């Protein structure tokens, strides 16, 4: 057993309100620079939708991630042979128009225009060329446009749905969508690292953060192709690639990353998980239907004495082990069994987990059949004719006939296995039923306990889930292991010290100095 620690995250999608505060916090700190304007290390996209860059999930276009090659795996669009032969011109590289051309407005014209009959206007100009331009695309251009033909219908995940299911889904298009905030997953089997010909990208052993050494990157652009989540970006000004650094200078100082700290919906949790690095290769090569299970199996119980002993033998600090024991991520992913990785079939073993959204799934939408039909009194009404039914009369009815095909969520979170999504959504529902029994009281104890039992939860566990979902304070949501000061000094060397700097770690030898 080779126990290592990884800073891992959970995003609770039911709580995301799509406010983009996280994106702005990140941009203000890290990517508000020339060449990086188009980069959103954190972005929030509306699902169903094409996302950013457009259709990033479609690996037939972008050739990202790993694919099974015999018993082993290989990079789909990069790697030693493909990477070096395509080094002069990478046929699988997204170009800036796949993201959007960054722009600003000529605000000065508003002030400096001579007096005239017309209002002066601030025309949009390209941030690349400085020329006036027509804006065709922008950050979260597809926000809330779930029903639109340009975005929702081009979502690559819809391929797994039958035409009828698609049609049914789009009938509800105006109400059925959810937000998917995305950052770099700091994967255990990062495709970006494996694809870098220069060896500039590396995973930090101590906490698993994946960084690009800006001094070693030579702009071969293979990581942009290889990352299936399109979370490495090419800076066209500096000729180097950049990516989310998980705010490691903040983490080392004990602060939550900026996106998480600022999250309005408090959907984000961060903590340490311990994993068995010996299993890495086997897990990454697992059969597609085993991928999620084996990835979750790789995460170790931080209270298990054997695991603790192995962790200590590996040089892990006690404080890190302690942080792992209090990790909200471990609770959500393993104890509660409520979170899933995004697109596990890309085989990078992402370490950002999502609690799938219940709300777009839960309710059903029915039309009054005839005048005499009684609409359920505890259900919300759309209007007099339509029923937006969130009733709990029939326990799982709304999930089993959900308006949002579970196949869609399964294509996002479980490589197509609807059962995995269903059990998690049912758990969300069960906790709601249980809380309703507790607070409103119109559901009997028996029914509430029946609901919990059916999904393998107990009342104390449901209380914990409720607490961590709804009441958790800052220190419950972010359990950050102390970066030991002597290490922190080394790690912080060369970090940008002011806004606009390149705030990156440099893969240089750590010259020893006394404290």
């Amino acid at each position, binding site marked *: 057993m080779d126990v290592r620690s990884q800073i891992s995250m959970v995003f609770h999608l039911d709580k995301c309100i799509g406010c983009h505060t996280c994106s702005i916090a990140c941009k203000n700190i890290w990517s508000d620079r020339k060449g990086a304007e188009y980069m959103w290390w954190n972005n929030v996209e509306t699902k169903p939708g094409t996302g950013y860059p457009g259709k990033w999930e479609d690996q037939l276009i972008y050739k990202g991630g790993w694919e099974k090659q015999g018993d082993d795996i290989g990079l789909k669009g990069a790697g030693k042979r493909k990477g070096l032969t395509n080094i*002069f011109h990478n046929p699988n590289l997204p*170009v800036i128009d796949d993201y959007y051309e960054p722009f600003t407005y000529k605000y000065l014209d508003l002030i400096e225009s001579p007096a005239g009959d017309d209002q002066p206007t601030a025309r949009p100009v390209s941030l690349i060329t400085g020329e006036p331009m027509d804006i065709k695309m922008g950050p979260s251009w597809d926000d809330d446009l779930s029903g639109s033909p340009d975005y929702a219908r081009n979502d690559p995940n819809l391929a797994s749905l039958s035409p009828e299911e698609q049609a049914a889904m789009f009938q509800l298009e105006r109400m059925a969508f959810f937000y998917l905030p995305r950052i770099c997953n700091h994967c255990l089997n990062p495709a970006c690292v494996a694809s870098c*010909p220069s060896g500039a990208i590396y995973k*930090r052993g101590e906490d698993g953060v994946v960084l690009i050494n800006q001094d070693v990157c030579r702009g071969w*652009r293979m990581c942009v192709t290889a990352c299936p989540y399109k979370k490495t970006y090419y800076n*066209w000004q*500096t000729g180097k690639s950049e990516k989310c650094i998980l705010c490691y200078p903040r983490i080392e100082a004990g602060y939550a990353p900026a996106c998480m700290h600022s999250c309005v919906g408090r959907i984000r949790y961060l903590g340490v998980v311990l994993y068995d690095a010996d299993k890495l290769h086997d897990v990454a090569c697992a059969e597609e239907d085993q991928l999620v299970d084996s990835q979750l199996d790789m995460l170790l119980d931080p209270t298990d004495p054997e695991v603790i002993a192995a962790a200590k033998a590996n*040089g892990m600090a006690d404080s890190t082990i302690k942080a792992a024991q209090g990790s909200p991520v471990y609770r959500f992913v393993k104890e509660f069994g409520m979170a899933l990785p995004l697109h596990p079939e890309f085989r990078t073993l992402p370490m950002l987990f999502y609690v799938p959204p219940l709300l777009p799934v839960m309710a059903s939408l029915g039309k009054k059949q005839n005048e005499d039909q009684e609409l359920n009194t505890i259900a919300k009404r759309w209007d007099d004719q339509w029923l937006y039914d969130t009733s709990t009369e029939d326990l799982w009815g709304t999930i089993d006939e959900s308006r949002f095909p579970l196949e869609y969520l399964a294509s996002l979170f479980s490589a197509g296995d609807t059962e995995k999504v269903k059990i998690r959504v049912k758990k969300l529902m069960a906790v709601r039923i249980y809380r309703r029994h507790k607070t409103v009281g119109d559901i009997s104890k028996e029914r509430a306990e029946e609901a919990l039992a059916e999904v393998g939860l107990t009342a104390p566990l449901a209380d914990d889930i409720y607490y961590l979902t709804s009441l958790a304070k800052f220190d419950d949501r972010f359990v950050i292991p102390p970066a030991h000061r002597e290490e922190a000094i*080394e790690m912080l060397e060369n970090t940008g010290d002011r806004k606009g700097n390149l705030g990156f770690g440099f893969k240089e030898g750590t010259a020893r100095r*006394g404290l």
Partner: protein
Amino acid sequence: MTYLDTLLFVALPYVAIVVFLVGTIGRYTTAGFSITSLSAQFLEGRSGFWGTVPFHIGILILFLGHLFIFLFPDLALLWNSNPVRLIIHEGIAFTFGLVVLVAIVGLLIRRWTHPRLRMVTSPMDIAIELMLLFQVVLGCWVALGYRWGSSWFAADLSPYLWSILSLSPETDAIAAMPWVIKLHVVGAFIIVLIFPFTRLVHFLVAPLHYLWRPYQVVMWYWDRKKIRRADTAWQSTRPHNN
């Protein structure tokens, strides 16, 4: 030997080599951040394929060909001793010269006409591209006009270059060359001279070590096994990579 010859074929080479060595090593060690391919593909898209790929492949073959004759002049002379083989040799060199010529012109036009690319083009980029263009034109000229040019290179220029490297410059042979070849040699030294200050430096960091490296790179800031032992905490151990 005129003063001009001494200037161009003794002074210039030494200045070029010294500047090259000091410049590249200095830039690599103190300004590693500035060493990159500066690829513009991201701003341009798929069409660049037709300029970039022929240019790179062509110029690599030409460079390796020159390097080979420089290193093994006898082998080159042996090959060239048969006129048919000589023509084949010169033909190949000329073909790739033409490929590079067309590609460079294409790349120059692209840089000039593409508004986004103009924004990421520095005067030095244009300067080095024009220098390369100049060299390729002269090279093609030599291949076409002096079909035994490659034998000259092997018989006369390679010894001249070796004489420079062994610090006992012999310029008689080169002084007797046609001016086209002289210009080609001077151009080469000028490129060596300005090399450290151009984007060409990415040639020196070609990532061949990728072939031997394991795919995943994990960096430890401390030796994890030693950090917890009091007696080793402050010893100087290099962090390891696995």
